[in-house]
């Protein structure tokens, strides 16, 4: 496919890796966090860590919507799915995310609930139009990338007066999560035998497709207030390697700027039309408890009162159902970059993608699942 294959060229990747090896100063460490699960997946899938010198380390961030979905809200969705006449629709991985005592939406489906995996929210709208006698609820999760389609669907539902359709809104915002990571000193020195870097994380690989929507401006505080460079990068291996090189160059020069490597898709101002649609439909929630990160102020979106008829939370008086996560699970530390998947005692033993105990093992973008699929034999000497 054009615009994918060129950015996966192995020879150029080797060349960029050689360049990184040359420019990274042996006297210091470079701890770089990729915020997005999309980057985590690309880094693991293409073996990017193996191309880097030992003093350049990548730390996985919390940017995986399935991973950070509060389990109490997931449990509320499972309860909703089991109500009579409800058809609950959601994106793929979400259906396998563990709620209370390992319950999932897929298990609810096995018990007889009508849970459907859809590719697009438009498919859920279509189900609602075709089955007016059923109550169709779309379980919306995701960062700013996935939010504009939900806004468009809600506007369609209102225009059509589609009364049997509603949305359970769990959309979250990237900049507040970045701020939360920077504001706490939970930025730890990840174990791994490398000299810890001052202040934990030295720089960020910034989101690809979130940035197509919000642009580069919302990240300025990372550079201005916290003096960390951030480079917005595409999700292909050459994009990631180029972003790492740009971060190393900034750090070598003592700079902290927001840079854009993904210029083919990201404009500084983002997608204004999408931003307008989101503002029309959603308002900021004052508090939202992220799985792993805890309560973060102004970090999530709720449906505006004007759209109350299509807001499942209001319509079905949904409340969070408290859930205790599995005691052996260290997802909370993994999501903060404080521990690595392989540090977890249940990693790849009791917790696998087929039977995830924690949310990071569910989606291919979760740090644990990505490491399970692509990296778990890296350290094994044959």
């Amino acid at each position: 496919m054009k615009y994918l294959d060129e950015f996966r060229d192995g020879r150029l990747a080797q060349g960029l890796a050689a360049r990184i090896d040359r420019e990274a100063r042996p006297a210091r460490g470079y701890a770089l966090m990729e915020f997005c699960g999309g980057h985590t997946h690309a880094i693991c899938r293409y073996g990017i860590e193996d191309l880097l010198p030992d003093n350049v380390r990548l730390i996985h961030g919390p940017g995986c919507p399935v991973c950070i979905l509060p389990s109490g809200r997931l449990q509320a969705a499972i309860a909703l799915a089991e109500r009579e006449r409800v058809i609950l629709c959601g994106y793929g991985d979400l259906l396998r995310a563990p709620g209370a005592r390992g319950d999932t939406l897929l298990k609810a489906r096995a018990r007889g609930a009508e849970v459907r995996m859809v590719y697009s929210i438009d498919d859920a709208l279509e189900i609602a139009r075709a089955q007016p006698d059923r109550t169709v609820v779309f379980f919306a999760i995701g960062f700013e990338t996935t939010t504009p389609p939900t806004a468009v669907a809600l506007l369609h539902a209102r225009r059509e007066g589609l009364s049997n359709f509603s949305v359970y809104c769990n959309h979250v915002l990237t900049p507040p999560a970045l701020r939360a990571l920077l504001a706490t000193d939970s930025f730890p020195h990840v174990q791994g035998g490398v000299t810890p870097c001052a202040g934990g994380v030295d720089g960020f690989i910034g989101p690809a497709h979130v940035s197509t929507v919000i642009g580069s401006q919302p990240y300025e505080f990372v550079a201005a207030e916290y003096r960390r460079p951030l480079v917005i990068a595409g999700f292909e291996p050459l994009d990631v390697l180029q972003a790492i090189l740009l971060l190393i160059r900034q750090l070598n020069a003592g700079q902290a700027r927001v840079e854009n490597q993904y210029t083919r898709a990201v404009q500084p101002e983002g997608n204004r039309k999408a931003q307008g649609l989101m503002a029309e439909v959603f308002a900021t929630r004052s508090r939202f408890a992220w799985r792993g990160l805890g309560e973060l102020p102004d970090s999530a979106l709720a449906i505006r009162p004007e759209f109350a008829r299509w807001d499942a939370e209001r319509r079905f008086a949904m409340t969070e159902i408290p859930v205790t996560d599995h005691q052996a699970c260290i997802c909370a530390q993994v999501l903060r970059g404080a521990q690595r998947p392989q540090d977890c005692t249940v990693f790849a033993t009791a917790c696998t993608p087929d039977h995830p105990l924690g949310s990071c093992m569910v989606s291919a973008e979760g740090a644990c699942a990505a490491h399970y699929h692509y990296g778990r034999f890296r350290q094994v000497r044959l």
Partner: protein
Amino acid sequence: MCLAIPAQVIEVVDAEHALVDMSGVRKRISTALLDTLAVGDYVIVHVGYALSRLDPDEAAETLRLIAEWAETAGDEVPG
């Protein structure tokens, strides 16, 4: 979740929809998040929605820079 893939517009269906080609797969997508599109344009598609345009000139420039850096990897380190 935020995965989005490049696709080429092969038919503009109406003001909010287009038919695109994704690696040989034809799919109807929503273009409600973008202003006017023309046949031949490249877009990035996420959950059935075109999220942004893909700029061919910027893509070429990024690849040119990558190739330049990759091929001069043995040269002296700048500044």
